[in-house]
C-alpha cells in the first residue's frame, strides 16, 4: 500500500522537557519522524516545549511551536494549523496523553483531525490496565492475578484477597511513578494512597508480585496490511521488581530457548493485534517464571518507547523512522532497509554481538533519598555498549557511564566493599542498587558461589557465570603480574572479556600508556565491526561501528578530510540533550561544509547515535582508550583533520589534554586549562581589569578556612572540572565549611566526579548575595571576531545554579550600559584566552558592578535556547569556526545571519525531578538538580514567563491564595510582590513573621499560619495542612540563609507532594506576578518559531551519507 495522498499536513507532538522516565529518546524518535514525513512531502507541524531538542530546530518541521504542551495550547495550534492528522505515538506518554485529552474533548473531531499510528480505542485498551488485562485474558494470554481499586478501602480489600507480596501500579502514568511493592498491610495502605494520588484517574492496579521472575521485552512493528515483525528481544539482567528503565538490559534475549522465544513472539503478535495498534511500533513486556517457564504479559506501550530507541540502536533497525512511514500508509515490505540498501524492512533483525544498556542515576543530588531501585524509575540517563560477548559489552557499558569506574571493578572503586564480610556483601547485593553488578563481581571474586548469589538476587545464573569468567580472567592477569608477561593470546583473551587498559594498569600498578604500548607491541589492537541488522548476511552500506578484539576491521576509507566529534556520553543532571544538540548540529554543519563527520558516543537515547546523523558512527565509550582506538582506525583510513571536544560538555573536554594537541580543533587545550586554573585565570582577569568576587583555591580544609576568613563569609565552595555544580555549596560559617570540605574529600578518594585532589583543588569564593546572574554564549573565530550569541539574565539571583534558574533573552532588567559592559568583558576574555569556537561566561551583577564568575571555552547548555530565541544557529557556527571558517565567511555563505528580536521575549525554565523524589527538598541551590528545560516565548516577559511555567508543569493560578513564608532578608522585597498579588485579586496567607511584616507595610494578610511545630498565639492552621487541604494555590517560600531550614523544607515538600506550584525565590515570585498580570490583560497566543525567526522554510540538514 503506498503513501496516503489524502493527508497533507501532519501534527507531530513531542514529549516536552526531559524528565525521569521520558528523556532524549523522544527527541531521537521525533526527529526521525519529522525528517521522514518532510522527506515524504507532508507539511509537518511540530509542538514541543523543549528548546534543547534537535527536533525543534526550525529545519525539521514546516511549523515549529515551542509552546507549553497543554490541551488548551495544543487545541490552539490545531485550530490555527488545521492539520489533517496527528501522530501521537512518537512523543512518549506526554504526546499520547495529550492526544487522548484532545480526542476526549472533541477537538480532533471538530477540526477533522485523524489520529494516525494508534487510534484512541487502541490507546485506551493498552493504557487502561483493567481493559488491558481483560483483553489479554480474552486472547488466552496469562496475566498476573490482580484487581483494581479506586479508593483506599477498596485497595485494602483487593490486596488482602490476592495476598502478599503485591505490586501496585497507578493507571496512566509514565516511568512507574507511584508504583511500589507491598509486603504487608501497612505497605499496601501507604503505597496505594500514593498510587491513587499519582494516577490522573485515581485508579490503581493491585497485582500479585512476580518479583524475581525473569523480565523480557519484545519490540514489535505492525503495518496496515497486518504484517508483524519483532525488531529486538531484550532480557533484563535485574529480575522483575526493578523498573525496566532502571534495569541493566541486554539484547538479544540470552536465556530463552527457541521454543520459549517463539511462544513469546506469538503472544506479542496476538497482543498487538488484539489491542489494535494498526501501524507502528509497540513494546510488550513479559515475565517468565525461571522454575517453570510460565510466561505472563506485564504491559504494552502502544507507541515508540525508551526501549524502542534502545532496540533501534541495538539492531540498526530505525523503529521511529519506519513507524512514521507506516503511519502514513506504507507497509513494511515497501520500505527499504537503509543498512543493506537492498532488502526490505519486513524482516527481523539478527545480530552478531551483545548489547548492554546500563542506567545512570543521580542519587548524589538528592541527599536523604536511598539509592534503592524499585518499580519506579529513578535513573536520569543511560549508556549502551556493544561487544561481541556479554562480558565485553558489560565492561564497556560500565566504563561508558563515567562514574569513575573503568569496568566491572579491577579499579580503585572496588575497595568500597572491602569492609563487609561475605554475608553482608550478599545481603547488600540482594537489594537492587546501582552498585549491584560491582558487588556481584566482588562476591564471586571472594569465592561466593553463583548459586548463592542467584538465590539472593534473582539474577540469572547465566549472567553470573559470565561475570565469573571476568573474575577468573582477572585472577590470571594478576598472576601474570605485568604487561611484559602477556603473549598475544593472553592480551586477546583479556580484551575480549572487556578489560580496559585502565583496569589492567590499576591491576599491575603501571601507567595506562604502558599497558597500551605493550599490548600494541604484542599485536593486539581494537578492530571495528559493523552493526548491520543481518549478522553480515548482506553487505552493510551504513557505517555504524563498534570496537571489539577480532581479526579484522570493516571500516572503509573516505576521500574527504575527517572531523571526529566526541559526544557527551550518558545523560545526567548537568549534561543532557543540549550537548547532543550541539554535537549533532556540528555534524550537520561540517558534513555540509565538505567534511566527513565521525561521531563517537555511547548514549542510545540520542540523535547523535542515529546512524544517519554523521558520515560514520562509532558506538563507543567516550574514554581516552576508546577514542584513541577510533582515531587509530580513522587515521589509517584517511586524513583526520581534527577532533571536536568543545561541544559535548565536560565528557570530551576532559579528554582534550590527552589528545595530540594538533588534533584538537578550535580553542587549544592550553586555553581550556587556563580557564580552569584558578591562579592563571585570576591573573588574566586582573590584567583585563574585570572584577571578580574575592576568592582563592584550597586543597585542604585549613587552606579553605584561610581563604574564607580572608574574603569573608558567605563563600561559594566548588570543585574544578565538574558539571552541573556537582558538590557546589554556599557556606555561611566555618562549621559548614568544614563539613563541605569533608564531603569533598570523601569523593576524592574514589576518583568520583568532583573529588578533591591536589591536581584538582577546590575553589572558594566570596558569595555575592542578591546579585543578578547573567550568562553569555559567544563564538570567537581565529581572526578574533567575537559573535555574542545572547546575554541571558537569570530570574533567580546568583546562588541558584544557572542550570536550575529561569533565564531570559533579552535581559528584562539590566540597563543597556551593563549589557554593553558584559559584552565588552566577554570579547576581552575570549580574546585573552585565544578562544576559537564557543565560549560561555557567567557574571554576577550587583548594583552596576559586573563581576565575572567563570568562563568556559566550550558550548554551554544554553546554546540551543539561544538559537531558538534568536534564530542564529550558534552550534553550527561554532563547529564551522573550529574547523577553520571565519564569521565573516559564514555570513557571506549565508549560514550566519542577524539575530531576530525586538518583538518577543524568550524564557527558559528548568524542570526539576522532585515529583519523583517526594521526600526531597525542592529548594534551589548551587547544585544543579534539574533534568530538563522548557521555553516560553511571547510578546512580553510576563507572558513568556507564564508560558514557561505552564510548560514546566506548574501552571500559574489565575486567582486564589498565595502563601508566603519568607526569610528575613527577603521580606522587604517580598512586600512589593505580595502587594502585586493582592492587586491581581489574590488573597495572601503567610507565616507569622512574614505576615507581621506585610501587615506593617499595609499588605492585608487573610490567613496567618503557624509554622510547623510552633504554637502560634491566636491559632491558625499550620502551613502543611493548609497546603494539604488545597487551600493554597501558589507557595512562595524562601529559605533563610543559614541555620535550621526545617519548617521551610516541610512547606516545600508539602507543595511538591500536593502539586501546588512552589517558588523559592522572591525574583521568581515577582516574575510570576508579572506573568499572571500580563496573561489576564492579553491571553497568550501560539506562534511558530518560523514566524518569530521570519525565515523561509529551511532544507533538511545533513543529507544522509552516500
Amino acid at each position, binding site marked *: 500500500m503506498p503513501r496516503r495522498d489524502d493527508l497533507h499536513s501532519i501534527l507531530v507532538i513531542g514529549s516536552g522537557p526531559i524528565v525521569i522516565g521520558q528523556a532524549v529518546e523522544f527527541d531521537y524518535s521525533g526527529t526521525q519522524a519529522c525528517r521522514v514525513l518532510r522527506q515524504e512531502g507532508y507539511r509537518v507541524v511540530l509542538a514541543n516545549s523543549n528548546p534543547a531538542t534537535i527536533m525543534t530546530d526550525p529545519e525539521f518541521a514546516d511549523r515549529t511551536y515551542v509552546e507549553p504542551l497543554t490541551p488548551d495550547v495544543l487545541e490552539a495550534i490545531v485550530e490555527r494549523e488545521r492539520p489533517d492528522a496527528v501522530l501521537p505515538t512518537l512523543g512518549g506518554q506526554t504526546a499520547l496523553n495529550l492526544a487522548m485529552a484532545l480526542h476526549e474533548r472533541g477537538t480532533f473531531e471538530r477540526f477533522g483531525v485523524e489520529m494516525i499510528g494508534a487510534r484512541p480505542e487502541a490507546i485506551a485498551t493498552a493504557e487502561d490496565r483493567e481493559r488491558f488485562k481483560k483483553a489479554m485474558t480474552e486472547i488466552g494470554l496469562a496475566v498476573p492475578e490482580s484487581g483494581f481499586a479506586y479508593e483506599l478501602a477498596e485497595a485494602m480489600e483487593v490486596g488482602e484477597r490476592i495476598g502478599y507480596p503485591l505490586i501496585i501500579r497507578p493507571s496512566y502514568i509514565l516511568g512507574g511513578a507511584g508504583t511500589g511493592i507491598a509486603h504487608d498491610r501497612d505497605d499496601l495502605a501507604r503505597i496505594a494512597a500514593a498510587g491513587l494520588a499519582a494516577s490522573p484517574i485515581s485508579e490503581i492496579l493491585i497485582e500479585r508480585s512476580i518479583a524475581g521472575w525473569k523480565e523480557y521485552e519484545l519490540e514489535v512493528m505492525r503495518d496496515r496490511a497486518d504484517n508483524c515483525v519483532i525488531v529486538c528481544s531484550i532480557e533484563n539482567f535485574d529480575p522483575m521488581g526493578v523498573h525496566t528503565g532502571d534495569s541493566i538490559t541486554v539484547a538479544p534475549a540470552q536465556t530463552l*530457548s527457541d521454543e*520459549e522465544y517463539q511462544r513469546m513472539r506469538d503472544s506479542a503478535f496476538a497482543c498487538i493485534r488484539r489491542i489494535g495498534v494498526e501501524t507502528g511500533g509497540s513494546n510488550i513486556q513479559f515475565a517468565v517464571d525461571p*522454575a517453570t517457564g510460565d510466561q505472563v504479559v506485564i504491559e504494552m506501550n502502544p507507541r515508540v518507547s525508551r526501549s524502542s530507541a534502545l532496540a533501534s540502536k541495538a539492531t540498526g533497525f530505525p523503529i521511529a523512522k519506519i513507524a512514521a512511514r507506516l503511519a502514513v500508509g506504507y507497509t513494511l515490505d515497501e520500505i527499504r532497509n537503509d543498512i543493506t540498501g537492498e532488502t526490505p524492512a519486513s*524482516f527481523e533483525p*539478527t545480530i*552478531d554481538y551483545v548489547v548492554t544498556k546500563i542506567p545512570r542515576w543521580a542519587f548524589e543530588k538528592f541527599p536523604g533519598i536511598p539509592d534503592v531501585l524499585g518499580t519506579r524509575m529513578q535513573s536520569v540517563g543511560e549508556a549502551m555498549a556493544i561487544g561481541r*560477548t556479554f562480558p565485553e559489552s558489560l565492561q564497556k557499558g560500565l566504563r561508558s557511564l563515567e562514574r569513575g569506574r573503568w569496568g566491572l571493578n579491577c579499579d580503585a572503586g572496588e575497595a568500597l566493599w572491602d569492609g563487609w564480610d561475605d554475608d553482608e556483601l550478599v545481603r547488600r547485593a540482594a537489594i537492587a542498587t546501582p552498585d549491584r553488578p560491582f558487588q556481584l563481581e566482588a562476591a564471586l571474586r571472594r569465592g561466593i558461589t553463583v548459586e548463592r548469589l542467584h538465590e539472593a538476587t534473582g539474577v540469572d545464573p*547465566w549472567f553470573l557465570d559470565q561475570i565469573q*569468567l571476568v573474575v577468573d580472567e582477572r585472577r590470571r592477569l594478576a598472576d601474570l603480574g605485568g604487561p611484559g608477561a602477556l603473549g598475544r593470546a593472553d592480551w586477546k583473551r583479556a580484551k575480549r572479556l572487556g578489560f580496559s587498559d585502565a583496569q589492567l594498569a590499576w591491576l599491575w600498578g603501571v601507567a595506562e600508556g604502558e599497558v597500551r604500548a605493550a599490548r600494541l607491541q604484542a599485536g593486539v589492537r581494537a578492530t571495528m565491526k559493523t552493526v548491520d541488522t543481518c549478522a553480515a548476511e548482506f553487505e552493510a552500506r551504513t557505517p555504524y561501528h563498534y570496537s571489539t578484539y577480532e581479526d579484522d576491521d570493516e571500516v572503509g576509507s573516505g576521500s574527504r578530510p575527517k572531523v571526529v566529534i566526541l559526544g557527551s556520553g550518558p545523560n545526567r543532571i548537568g549534561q543532557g540533550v543540549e550537548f547532543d544538540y550541539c554535537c549533532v548540529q556540528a555534524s550537520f554543519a561540517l558534513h555540509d561544509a565538505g567534511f566527513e563527520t565521525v561521531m563517537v558516543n555511547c548514549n542510545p537515547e540520542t540523535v547523535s547515535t542515529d546512524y544517519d546523523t554523521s558520515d560514520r558512527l562509532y558506538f563507543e565509550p567516550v574514554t581516552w582508550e576508546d577514542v584513541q582506538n577510533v582515531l587509530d582506525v580513522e587515521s589509517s583510513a584517511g586524513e583526520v583533520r581534527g577532533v571536536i571536544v568543545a561541544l559535548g560538555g565536560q565528557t570530551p573536554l576532559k579528554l582534550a589534554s590527552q589528545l595530540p594537541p594538533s588534533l584538537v580543533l578550535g580553542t587549544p587545550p592550553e586555553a581550556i586549562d587556563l580557564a580552569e586554573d584558578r591562579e592563571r585565570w585570576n591573573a588574566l582577569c586582573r590584567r583585563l581589569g574585570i572584577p571578580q568576587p574575592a576568592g582563592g583555591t584550597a586543597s585542604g580544609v585549613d587552606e579553605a578556612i584561610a581563604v574564607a576568613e580572608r574574603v569573608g563569609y558567605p563563600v561559594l565552595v566548588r570543585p574544578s572540572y565538574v558539571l552541573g555544580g556537582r558538590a557546589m555549596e554556599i557556606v555561611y560559617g566555618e562549621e559548614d565549611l568544614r563539613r563541605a570540605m569533608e564531603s569533598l574529600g570523601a569523593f576524592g578518594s574514589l576518583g568520583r566526579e568532583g573529588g578533591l585532589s591536589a591536581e584538582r583543588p577546590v575553589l572558594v569564593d566570596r558569595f555575592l548575595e542578591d546579585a543578578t546572574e547573567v550568562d553569555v554564549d559567544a563564538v570567537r573565530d581565529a581572526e578574533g571576531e567575537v559573535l555574542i550569541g545572547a546575554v541571558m539574565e537569570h530570574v533567580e539571583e546568583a546562588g541558584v545554579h544557572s542550570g536550575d534558574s529561569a533565564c531570559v533573552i533579552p535581559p528584562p532588567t539590566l540597563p543597556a550600559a551593563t549589557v554593553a559592559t558584559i559584552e565588552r568583558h566577554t570579547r576581552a576574555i575570549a580574546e585573552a584566552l585565544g578562544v576559537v569556537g564557543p565560549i560561555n561566561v557567567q557574571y554576577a551583577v550587583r548594583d552596576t558592578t559586573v563581576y565575572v564568575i567563570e568562563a568556559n571555552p566550550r558550548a554551554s547548555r544554553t546554546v540551543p535556547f539561544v538559537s531558538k530565541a534568536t534564530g542564529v544557529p550558534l552550534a553550527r557556527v561554532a563547529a564551522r569556526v573550529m574547523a577553520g571558517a571565519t564569521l565573516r565567511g559564514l555570513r557571506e555563505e549565508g549560514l550566519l545571519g542577524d539575530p531576530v528580536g525586538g518583538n518577543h521575549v524568550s524564557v527558559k525554565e528548568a524542570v526539576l525531578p522532585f515529583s519523583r523524589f517526594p521526600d526531597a527538598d525542592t529548594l534551589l541551590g548551587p547544585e544543579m538538580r534539574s533534568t530538563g528545560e522548557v521555553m516560553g516565548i511571547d510578546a512580553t516577559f510576563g507572558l513568556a514567563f507564564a508560558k514557561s511555567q505552564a510548560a514546566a508543569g506548574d501552571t500559574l493560578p489565575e486567582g486564589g491564595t498565595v502563601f508566603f513564608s519568607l526569610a528575613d532578608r527577603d521580606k522587604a522585597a517580598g512586600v512589593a510582590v505580595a502587594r502585586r498579588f493582592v492587586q491581581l485579586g489574590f488573597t495572601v496567607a503567610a507565616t507569622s513573621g512574614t505576615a507581621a511584616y506585610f501587615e506593617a507595610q499595609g499588605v492585608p494578610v487573610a490567613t496567618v499560619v503557624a509554622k510547623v511545630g510552633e504554637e502560634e498565639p491566636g491559632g491558625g492552621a499550620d502551613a502543611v495542612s493548609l497546603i494539604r487541604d488545597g487551600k493554597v494555590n501558589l507557595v512562595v517560600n524562601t529559605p533563610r540563609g543559614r541555620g535550621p531550614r526545617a519548617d521551610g523544607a516541610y512547606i516545600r515538600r508539602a507543595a511538591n507532594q500536593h502539586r501546588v506550584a512552589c517558588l523559592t525565590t522572591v525574583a521568581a515570585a515577582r516574575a510570576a506576578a508579572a506573568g499572571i498580570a500580563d496573561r489576564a490583560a492579553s491571553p497568550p497566543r501560539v506562534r511558530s518559531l518560523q514566524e518569530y525567526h521570519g525565515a523561509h522554510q529551511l532544507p533538511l540538514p545533513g543529507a544522509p551519507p552516500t
Partner: protein
Amino acid sequence: MTNNRRAAALLVLADGTSFEGEAAGWWDAGDPRPATGEVVFNTTLTGYQEVLTDPSYAGQIICFTYPHIGNYGVSAADNESARAFCRGVVVRDLSPRPSSWRSEMSIGEFLESQRLPAITGVDTRRLTRHIREAGSMPGAFGPVEGPAALSETDLKEAAAAEPGTLGVDLVSEVTTERPYPFGAGRLRVVAYDFGIKRAILRHLGTLATGEVVPASTPAAETLAKRPDGVFLSNGPGDPAAVGYAVEQIRELLGRVPVFGICLGHQLMATALGGRTYKMPFGHHGGNHPVRRLATGQVEITSQNHNYAVAEGSVEGAQVTHLNLNDGVIEGVSCPELRAFSVQYHPEAGPGPHDASYLFSEFERLMGA
C-alpha cells in the same frame, strides 16, 4: 566450568583462508583427524540445538553468527532427529554452563555425546563475511596443539580434499532404514524421509496418522498404503543427486495430494520439470521475509538450504511464495495435481510460526 586452557585450533577453508580459535567439543585423541565439510553460516539467535540436530546439515560445518551458543543448554524435547548429522561447529563463544529450567545437559556435554568437533573463539563475523563474498566452500578444522594436534598443512589438505555437497547424495546418509509410524490424526499420510525433522512430524501428527518411509521407497509401495496425502521432507545437499526420489515423486503427483518442504520442494519441482541450482551461500536462519503471493502478506520464515529452484524453470506449476531479500522462489503449487511445496520451514524448529497455516492447507487438500 573448567579453567583448563583449550588447545589452539585452526579452521582452514578450501581457498586457503584460515581462522584461529580453540578446540572444543569432541576430538579423538587416539586418532587425530580434522573435521571437514562444507562451511555454512546460520544467523538464528535461538535454536542452536534444533539446528545441530537437523539432518539437512549433513555434510556441513555450521558457523553460528550469534556469538553466545549454549546459553540455555540442551533438552531432549528440542532434538530434530536422533542425532547430529552435521560435521562440526564453529562458534565465537560456548557457554560454560546452561541456564534454563528445560536444560538436561550443557552444550559441551551435548557435543561430546554427539562426537561432534567444535572450534570456539573464532571471529565468526569475518568467516561469515568471507563466505558471503566467496560463497560457501569446504573447510577443515582441528586442534593445532595438544594430544590430537594437527598441522596447518593437514588441515589445508583436508579442506582441499573435501568434496562439498554438489552432486553428492547425502540423503542416503540420513534417511531411515525402515518405515516407522507417527501421529494420531484423522488422515493417513506417508512421509518420505530425506532427512525429516521432528517438528514436521509433530505438525503432521496432529492431522494424520502415518508412516515415515525411506527416501528410496517406490511410489507403488507408497500408493499401496492408500494414503490421503504424501509428504516430501526436508533433507541435506544437492537435489540433483537424488534422482531416484524424483522418479517416484513423478509417479505420485496427480494420484495423491503432495506437500513438500525444502529438499522435498526442490525434488517436487524437479519432478514437475523444474531445474535447481546451487546458491552462493544459501539461506540459513530464522528471519527471511517471504511474500505469500495469494494475499500479499509477508511471513518471517525459518530457512536452511543451499540449493534452490531456478526461476521460470517449473512450467507445470505456479510460484506461490517469493523471498523478498533476493527473489528466490520460496513456494510453488500445482492445483490440478493437488500438490504444493515451500522452500522454507513452516514447521519452525527453530524459527517463527508465521507459516504454520501450510499444514492446514495440506489438511484441506487431503480432505477435499
